[in-house]
């Protein structure tokens, strides 16, 4: 980047920071003068103080975060594996697809999170019903996306591979899956986001522990500053998940970006050279 470009970038960052700080200052003075109702807009300094309290002095958020994120991870893993697996099976088989389609449409129109109270009633209070909710919420996006990814495979290429004598497994591994991976990853991203919503809803209904229950308790006590601090924590987690999924995506679908393609080509060239070297030795 040219020095000019760098300077412009820093100036813009400065502007962003200035606007942000200006807004916060306005907000803070608004709260001090009683202009803003602390019930709606807890003062920024109060929110900072709450952060300090829930993370350091009281440190009570750690346990709840640990519980919620554990559930998210368990539910997401199971739900998305199930979704991708079933999606691939259904996508490959035309008859299964035709007979499942109406059910898929109906299930897709149902607000998935709405099944939460039902699952809690069926499976009882405890982590199992929460995990079931997250699984259900995580299942759909990967399922639908895998299905459409498998269905949208390039027919000409498939025919070419078949006519060159590729087996079904080879077509799946070398053509269908690589083609579908960007779409599948998009589904996984959606699933990860909805997993976070899923755990929150489960905890709102089943108010024993977890970050959702914590937010609910704080708002019930009208301790809005602490509730905001919890929500901002979730924002940070959401951001980390977003970035993390992006990184995984770059890594898995490496041919979609320049750097990944270069890295993989070099790696393969090295492996190829090594193999050829080995042959020459022999």
């Amino acid at each position, binding site marked *: 980047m040219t020095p000019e470009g760098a300077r412009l970038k820093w100036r*813009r960052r400065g*502007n*962003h920071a200035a*606007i942000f700080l200006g807004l916060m200052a306005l907000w803070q003075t608004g709260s001090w003068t009683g202009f803003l109702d602390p*019930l*709606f807009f807890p003062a920024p300094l109060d929110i900072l103080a709450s952060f300090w309290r829930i993370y350091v002095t009281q440190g009570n958020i750690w346990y709840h975060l640990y519980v919620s994120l554990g559930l998210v991870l368990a539910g997401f893993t199971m739900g998305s594996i199930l979704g991708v697996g079933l999606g691939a099976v259904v996508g490959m088989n035309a008859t299964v697809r035709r*007979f499942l389609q*109406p059910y898929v*449409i*109906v*299930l*897709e*129109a*149902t*607000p*998935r*999170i*709405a*099944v*939460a*109270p*039902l699952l*809690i*009633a*069926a*499976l009882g209070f405890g982590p199992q019903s929460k995990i079931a909710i997250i699984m259900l919420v995580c299942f759909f996006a990967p399922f639908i996306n895998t299905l459409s990814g498998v269905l949208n495979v390039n027919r000409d290429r498939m025919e070419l591979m078949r006519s060159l004598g590729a087996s079904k497994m080879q077509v799946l591994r070398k053509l269908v899956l690589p083609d579908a991976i960007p779409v599948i990853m998009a589904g996984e991203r959606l699933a990860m*986001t909805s997993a*976070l*919503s899923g755990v*929150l*809803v489960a905890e*709102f*209904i089943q108010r024993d522990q977890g970050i*959702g229950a914590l*937010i*609910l308790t*704080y*708002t*019930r006590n*009208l301790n*809005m500053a602490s*509730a*905001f601090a*919890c*929500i*901002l924590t*979730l*924002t940070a987690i*959401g*951001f980390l*998940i*977003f970035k993390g999924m992006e990184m995984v995506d770059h890594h898995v679908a490496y041919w979609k970006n320049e750097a990944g393609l270069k890295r993989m080509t070099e790696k393969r060239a090295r492996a190829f050279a090594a193999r050829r070297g080995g042959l020459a030795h022999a």
Partner: protein
Amino acid sequence: MRDTGFGAIYWTVRIAPHLVIFAALLTLWEVAVAQGWITSIMIPRPSKIGAAIANLYVIKGTIWEHFFITLGEAVFGFLIGAVVAILLALFSSLSERFERYVSPYAVVLNVTPGIALTPLIIAWFGYGMGSKIALAAVICFFPIFVNTLTGLRQMDPDREELFRSLGASNRQVFFKARVPAALPLMFAGMKIGLTTALIGAVVAEFAQATAGVGVLMARASFALDMAGSLAALLSMTLMGLLLFYGMELLDDRVVFWRREARMSAVSRARAKAWKARRGQRDEKNNMGGETK
């Protein structure tokens, strides 16, 4: 489409196997519960669910009030969220500076699970419909915003050049080229947004409410009345389908050029209108000739 009698046979052949399978599944389910292979507390018999649906919709008719309350909440929330999202996307696409300073906040809003705001929104807007509408609006905002903005940005440069070289004004380029190019994506966003709005309304009802399908469902499942709870859930499915197909219909009307059949229908109608207009003009011209 003209019915040649062929269509009916075709549909029977297509649909009959589906119906048979569906009936077989229901029978199997019924028998499995009746025989005690599945505990009826977890999964009630289909006949019980049917009875619960009949009770909700016809005998007692309790669902209607709740149904329309929830539907109204979702639709109102969606309208508010969509209007704000589309306006912000329009401004962002028109002014780079506006976008630069607004987009960080939009990103922050996006990565925050909107559902997390439920207790706060209920504390702010109360137990009534207001809080449900607010939550629906908040969580349906983002998909619409992003899709509209992406749509408005992805203008084919060749097309813009063609417009410019034919002397189109800025406004014409915007309304005749940029907006139509954005419409398909915008509608895709609104379809997602509408479903999300319904989720928002229902979740807010779970958290705290006095009326709505969500309340009905939560009450039934806490009374371990699984049949009633499933009947309420199916009502939500119905609502989701209604909203989705409504949006699809609108999409089909507005973005008519994407589907072959609609495209030719609209072209025919326009050609007819044009011809009629030309006919009128010709008549006038002819009359003019006669008076001379």
